[in-house]
């Protein structure tokens, strides 16, 4: 006598074959482009961001920064190869058409009549760009919409007194920002990948473009402002002084392509006096965040997260169990940063 075998869920076993590493377009948001000090007055160069090349330039007086599409709307010359900054504008090498940081055409040196569209709107795509935190930031939206939100005030970066810290880092990850940021709500991995002593409690709440994250009842408190800026404050009691000391990790990741990301971070802390136990402790906190703290069992992101990020595939239908963090609410929130683009309607 034979019995029918129990039917198996083939999707469970075979879905892996159709998975992609990062099946998402570049999300809209404010993104770090470079540190302000790296772009001199009158300088122009090409940068790779958001799945394409852009021309980054600074006006001759130093006050304005532009990020433009490379290809001149006139006859398609690459402005970043042979172009030049002229006053406030960038000039195409081919026929010397000039554009300001908003993409408005400011000069066509030989035309008797400017094409009417030039008065109505930008003709060269540019990204809204500001300088804040000592950095250049651009707003990316796939359909050129104006910024949906502003960059926040970050005291650790902007308050001239009270904070210090010059440590910065930059890492390339072979995946998209959504996958990187998802680790924030995935608290179970903290115990198993990072060797944390336990799985901390987590709460995540969402308010428009912001996510508020609390891991371990105030141990790590994070604010994410769209996909490109994440401020995480690590609050720990120093066993020597019995004081709660806060160190801050400002993380500013930028999509280089839709599935590769440059992760950038600045680490800041209260400007404690040299030689104090507080300074000693807060420096150790920062070592711990990155992954190099001496004499500690647990590991920061540098040593353990990349092996997962760089090799995983996104599972749209993950098999989650109790104890996993609030993954699905995070994914639902993150959807707001993907805009539908129908090229047949442009």
């Amino acid at each position, binding site marked *: 006598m034979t019995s029918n075998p129990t039917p198996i869920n083939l999707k469970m076993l075979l879905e892996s074959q159709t998975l992609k590493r990062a099946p998402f377009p570049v999300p809209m948001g404010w993104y770090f482009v470079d540190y302000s000090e790296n772009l001199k007055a009158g300088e122009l160069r090409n940068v790779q961001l958001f799945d394409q090349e852009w021309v980054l330039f600074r006006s001759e007086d130093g006050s304005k920064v532009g990020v433009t599409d490379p290809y001149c709307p006139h006859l398609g010359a690459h402005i970043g190869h042979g172009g030049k900054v002229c006053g406030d504008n960038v000039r195409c090498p081919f026929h010397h058409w000039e554009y300001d940081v908003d993409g408005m055409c400011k000069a066509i040196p030989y035309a008797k*009549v400017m094409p009417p569209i030039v008065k109505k709107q930008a003709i060269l795509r540019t990204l809204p760009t500001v300088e804040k935190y000592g950095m250049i930031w651009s707003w990316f939206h796939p359909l050129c919409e104006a910024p949906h939100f502003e960059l926040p005030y970050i005291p650790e970066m902007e308050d001239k007194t009270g904070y210090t810290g010059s440590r910065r880092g930059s890492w390339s990850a072979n995946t998209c920002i959504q996958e990187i940021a998802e680790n924030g709500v995935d608290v179970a991995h903290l115990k198993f990948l990072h060797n944390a002593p336990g799985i901390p409690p987590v709460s995540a709440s969402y308010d428009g473009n912001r996510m508020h994250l609390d891991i371990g009842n105030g141990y790590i408190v994070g604010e994410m402002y769209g996909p490109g800026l994440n401020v995480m404050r690590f609050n720990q009691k120093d066993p020597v002084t019995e004081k709660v000391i806060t160190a801050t990790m400002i993380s500013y990741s930028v999509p280089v392509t839709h599935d590769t990301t440059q992760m950038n971070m600045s680490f800041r802390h209260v400007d404690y006096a040299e030689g104090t136990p507080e300074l000693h402790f807060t420096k150790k906190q920062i070592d711990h965040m990155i992954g190099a703290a001496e004499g500690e069992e647990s590991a920061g992101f540098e040593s353990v997260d990349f092996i997962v990020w760089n090799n995983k595939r996104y599972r749209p239908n993950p098999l989650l169990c109790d104890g996993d963090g609030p993954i699905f609410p995070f994914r639902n929130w993150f959807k707001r940063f993907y805009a539908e683009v129908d090229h047949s309607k442009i």
Partner: protein
Amino acid sequence: MAEVRVTDRKGGESTISADSGRPLMEVLRDANFDLQGTCGGAMSCGTCHVYIKPEWNDKLPAKSEDEQMMLEAIGDLVEVRPNSRLSCQVVLDDSMAGIEVEIAPEV
């Protein structure tokens, strides 16, 4: 097939034949009236400017905002009249047979 009666910039008159469905600009450009049509119909250059006899007005498509803006823009350099048109915006059809067109001065 539509006939187009053309007055050139020197006042000379001639009649040319043209296929329906073609923009008037292309017909005039290809017939060597020294009309440039540089931008190819994008309404960004103003080099296909013509005057069309007002009698033909009701056979013509209405001017778009973009055509109006381009005509205004060339107004500082050449005479723009109520019957000024960008000939790239006039697609010939059989009802326009015999249309009377004067090539406007160069921008």
